[in-house]
């Protein structure tokens, strides 16, 4: 079970992404972070802390649950529904540059659902995509703007992102 990113590596990567965000947006004015539940939210909060350290400014941060926007809901004749959790975006996203944050980018279907959900909250000036790991195998025309690590995988493999907040430790594991 090879560990492809350890805690140090994850920490350095997120700091680097935070710097890239500041550079590309020429500061953090009008930025907002929205993490996709569950681990995207943890990463978004960490990025908010890094951005605060770098620029001294707070970036509003929210949590998005995409369950009700999934394209595989109701596709099976019968079966239990996925658990719905709370979306918390307590600020207006109108005219903001929204940074959508997820742990792993794979087929792109989660991102598609998140884009649809975000648009229901308002009309952001732009949406940029931040992911810790891009493992390839896209099924939709979606591309990340900030990538922690590109990790070529086979579809049979699985990528586990574990974070302190939900899993007690920081690591990315390839299985």
């Amino acid at each position, binding site marked *: 079970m090879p560990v492809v990113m350890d805690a140090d590596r994850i920490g350095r990567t997120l700091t680097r992404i935070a710097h890239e965000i500041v550079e590309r947006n020429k500061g953090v004015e009008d930025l907002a972070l929205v993490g996709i539940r569950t681990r995207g939210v943890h990463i978004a909060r960490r990025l908010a802390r890094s951005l605060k350290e770098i620029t001294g400014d707070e970036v509003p941060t929210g949590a998005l*649950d995409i369950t*009700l*926007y999934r394209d595989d809901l*109701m596709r*099976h004749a019968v079966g*239990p*529904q996925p658990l719905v959790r709370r979306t918390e975006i307590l600020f207006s996203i109108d005219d903001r540059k929204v940074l959508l944050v997820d742990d792993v980018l794979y087929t792109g279907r989660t991102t598609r659902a998140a884009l649809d959900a975000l648009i*229901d909250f308002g009309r952001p000036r732009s949406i940029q995509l931040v992911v810790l790991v891009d493992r390839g195998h896209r099924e939709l025309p979606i591309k990340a703007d900030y990538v922690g690590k590109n990790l070529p995988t086979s579809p049979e493999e699985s990528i586990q992102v574990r974070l302190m907040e939900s899993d007690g430790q920081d690591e990315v594991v390839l299985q």
Partner: protein
Amino acid sequence: MTPAAITALRHKDLLGIADLAADEISLVLDTAEAMKEIGSRPIKKVPALRGKTIVNLFFEPSTRTRTSFEIAEKRLSADTLNIAISSSSVVKGETLADTALNLEAMNPDMIVLRHSSSGACHLLARICRSAIINAGDGMHEHPTQALLDAFTIRERKKRLAGLKVAIVGDLLHSRVLRSNIHLLTKMGAEVWVCGPPTLIPTEIRRFGVRATSVVEEAVRDADVIMLLRIQLERMEGAFFPSLREYFNVFGMTEKRLELASPDVMIMHPGPMNRGVEIASEVADGPYSVILDQVHNGVAVRMAVLYLLAGGSEHEAAA
């Protein structure tokens, strides 16, 4: 609040709280918490039930429940149709079963049924493929009302277990009472019921509640007081001398409220008879959560619709 351990209900239908286990009740309440946020968005709609057809079949008058179901269905993007009995073939003498089978021939996914006969939804559940949701059947159950009551209590008190809940009013004719007793006792609350002796069903104590006709006893130190409507339309005999007398002996007044816990919640499933079971000062007072109940009803019904739309765990395993 601990997350629910299960992710699906075990039944195709929601006929009553009697059929639900505590973990299923928690699942509905947890899902409703997530659903509640949707109602505060600029666009109050999610695509979850796109392409699902839901029939609201109401054989009894209803404002709150029917509107609440309809809003919940629309917020989940389902296609809804409302059948008002006055303009349907029921007035020509069609039976409930025939009405349901004919509606089902048009392939809806769910039927929300309100009927004056206890057990009407059980009949439909047996003969229909669609998921049946009980929106009140006679004097039997009104499960979504009990779920929204529990949601409102849990939101305020952060728990249900160990709370003293006093339910005062027309116990005999109330489906809200029956659903609430099932739910609250399953979740570990201490339930007291109170009303005139003529309106206390015999054997009610078998449901694990304490019954009294002394309102002060029921209300003392109560965390929640739930008032039930005096259902004049269902009363065929003389159960008490007059509405005035009922109010004097059982009506919830500010004075009686002083006996309750200092952070008591006053609930009423509506419609209220002001000056009969509840004084206007109490209904509009600081302890009243009556409009929160209505507000939360939409989120709770969204949760029920969403959870039933996927079918049951049992069917998926089969």
